[in-house]
């Protein structure tokens, strides 16, 4: 564990901190200048990062809570641990993990070692050796793939050049919070013309601190390069603390292509408030595939700023809102150059009183000619208590644009059920089949193992056997 090698006295002197020893290794709830400085100091960060964090804290404290989206009033910022050392977070006992989470792991067929890790009760994961072999191959090509803390230490010049250039702290209150207290996350750098054909999977190194609550991810794809980054898994992520606020910044340079796939299933007490943004330059292609399951409230709108001629953006968003959940998800496409094109496809499913909203932005700047954009959002309601809303915002400052917007809200019809049941399927099997068909356009874009798990999870949800 990286944090285990601190020399206490040395750091205290270097950063002029004075604090009782008990504060050094014990996590503390709440948020103030001291805690933010302490995080930076414990991570042995360069001064510019410490200053950046403190400035971000100022912004966070000044910014009001958003007045749109979901209900965030239940977040108590003073009752959260903002930094937990990996050695601490791995010390939870398997016995402390709630039974329903364990049951879900069993039903999904998650291997024993992985289960414990996912629940935060184990630090080793057997596929680590697989990851190490891949890592060697990537390194030969000059690809960098590591956690953000390591990147800041070992590749600080690249990090410094791009960090926070896409999502500045002042962007929104939660981006500011993340900027102040971030920890973990992934760093990916793909050199010019390099094609990374095996997806870079955060899954392989889930013990490497990237599943923190305030992770920060930075990805740079140099001209003509290609990569696919995959994170998360369909098993529920069990978190005792209830706030997950991540920032993801992606830079896709000229003629490069990049896809970022996320499937996350948070436990139902979590506020999942994430800012994901990419910039695509000339003829670059950026794709977000974003699957949101679980959580109390998710607010997440992956966005692409198309800043070079011919850039293309594709956003596929999938949300499943169950009991007590609100999925406020969607996507934003900003056309800042001519001949740019974008597609947003959003699919949401609501069940047991869950609420899902599509929130999207389509912006075309003046001077961006020949812009094409297609937005399609479909909602499926599985019962009478559930709810779906659509908030498509458009700001078009140019005449020569081609824009399509389609939206639908549907329910599982008696006729569909009758038809499938007449072929021997039970009502639950029939409903699950209709739902899996509904999400197929997005699931087919997922890596195979995720697609299989996803369909399995949906089936479990439909049977009402997972919470």
């Amino acid at each position: 564990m990286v944090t285990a090698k601190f020399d206490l006295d040395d750091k205290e002197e270097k950063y002029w901190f004075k604090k009782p020893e008990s504060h050094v290794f014990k996590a503390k709830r709440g948020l103030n200048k001291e805690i933010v400085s302490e995080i930076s100091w414990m991570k042995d960060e360069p001064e510019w990062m410490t200053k950046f964090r403190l400035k971000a804290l100022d912004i966070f404290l000044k910014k009001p809570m958003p007045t749109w989206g979901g209900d965030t009033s239940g977040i108590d910022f003073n009752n959260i641990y903002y930094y937990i050392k990996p050695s601490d977070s791995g010390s939870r006992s398997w016995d402390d993990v709630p039974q329903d989470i364990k049951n879900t792991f069993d039903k999904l067929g998650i291997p024993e070692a992985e289960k414990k890790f996912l629940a935060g009760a184990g630090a080793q994961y057997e596929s680590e050796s697989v990851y190490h072999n891949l890592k060697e191959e990537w390194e030969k090509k000059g690809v960098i793939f590591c956690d953000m803390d390591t990147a800041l230490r070992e590749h600080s010049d690249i990090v410094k050049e791009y960090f926070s250039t896409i999502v500045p702290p002042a962007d929104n209150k939660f981006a500011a919070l993340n900027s102040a207290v971030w920890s973990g996350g992934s760093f990916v750098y793909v050199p010019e013309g390099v094609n990374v054909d095996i997806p870079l999977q955060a899954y392989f190194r889930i013990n490497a601190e990237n599943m923190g609550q305030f992770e920060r991810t930075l990805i740079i794809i140099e001209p003509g390069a290609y990569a696919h980054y995959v994170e998360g898994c369909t098993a529920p992520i069990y978190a005792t603390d209830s706030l997950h606020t991540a920032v993801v910044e992606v830079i896709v340079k000229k003629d490069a292509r990049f896809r970022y796939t996320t499937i996350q299933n948070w436990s139902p007490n979590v506020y999942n408030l994430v800012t994901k943004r990419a910039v695509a330059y000339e003829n670059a292609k950026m794709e977000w595939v974003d699957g949101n399951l679980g959580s109390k409230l998710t607010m997440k709108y992956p966005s692409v700023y198309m800043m070079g001629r011919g850039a293309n953006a594709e956003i596929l968003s999938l949300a499943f809102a169950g009991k007590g959940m609100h999925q406020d998800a969607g996507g934003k496409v900003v056309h800042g150059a001519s001949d740019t094109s974008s597609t947003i496809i959003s699919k949401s499913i609501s069940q047991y009183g869950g609420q899902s909203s599509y929130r999207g932005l389509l912006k075309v700047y003046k001077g961006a000619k020949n812009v094409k954009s297609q937005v399609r959002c479909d909602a499926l309601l599985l019962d009478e208590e559930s709810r779906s809303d659509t908030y498509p915002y458009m700001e078009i400052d140019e005449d020569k644009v081609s824009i399509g917007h389609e939206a639908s809200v549907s329910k599982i019809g008696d006729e569909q059920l009758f038809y499938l049941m007449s072929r021997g399927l039970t009502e639950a099997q029939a409903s699950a089949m209709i739902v899996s068909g509904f999400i197929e356009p997005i699931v087919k874009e997922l890596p195979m193992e995720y697609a299989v798990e996803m369909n399995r999870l949906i089936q479990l949800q439909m049977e009402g056997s997972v919470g």
Partner: protein
Amino acid sequence: MTNNINIKEGLEVDSQSEDNRNNSLVIKNLKVSIDDKIILNDINLNIKKGEVHALMGPNGSGKSTLSCTLMGHPQYKVESGTAMFNGKDILQMPTNERACMGLFMGFQYPVSIPGVSMANFLRMAVNSINGKNNPEKKPMPIAKFHKLLKEKMAILKMDSSFTSRYLNDGFSGGEKKKAEILQMAMLEPHMAILDETDSGLDIDALRFVADGVNSLIGPNLGVLIITHYKRILNYIKPQFVHVLYKGRIVVSGGPELSQLLEDQGYEEIIKNNE
């Protein structure tokens, strides 16, 4: 005019007889309503395995109500009567259990399920039915299933690209009916009710569908063809023809009855039999 027709006012059957088992369908005194309105009244029919029956009737006579009731559509309420299939009254069973017993309905308007491929759907259906009837049996391996599917499609002269398409999604009228016949071939039912399978088909598609049904007809399958027109009966030859009018079977007879209907029209036949 009607003296050559053997009129049977409800085929009397003994519910304890051999006929009631061995996959025969015996409908007795069936009365069905929708929203408190009586649609079918005192329906009696006996279809043995190996037999082909045709039920003809004008629009609104209750033809589709009968097929939907037998399959268990929730909208239709059984007021009284029984429908014994293989010795069991199916009228209170869930739809899927009826299917698992070997009852099949070819839909007049097959429903589309976007995102679900024909192949996946058929595999699920085959495994559901096999699993229900034999819980010990493991699901059919994918390779074996695809081999079976290929064989059935070859018999029906169907294009193999068909099964990778989403179930009935964007299908033409003819393709939908072909898909129904493929499902029937894969599920191997003991009793098939084909609800206006001929409606909206051009002559080529009609012939295709009829050839498909004929290839499946055999000593272990009972068939009830429900139709408005005689057209399909030129290709599929029933041994028995029944005329449904205002919710009752007003006349039953042999294959000659359908020709008579074609020549004289429903009005005339019904008038002569009321």
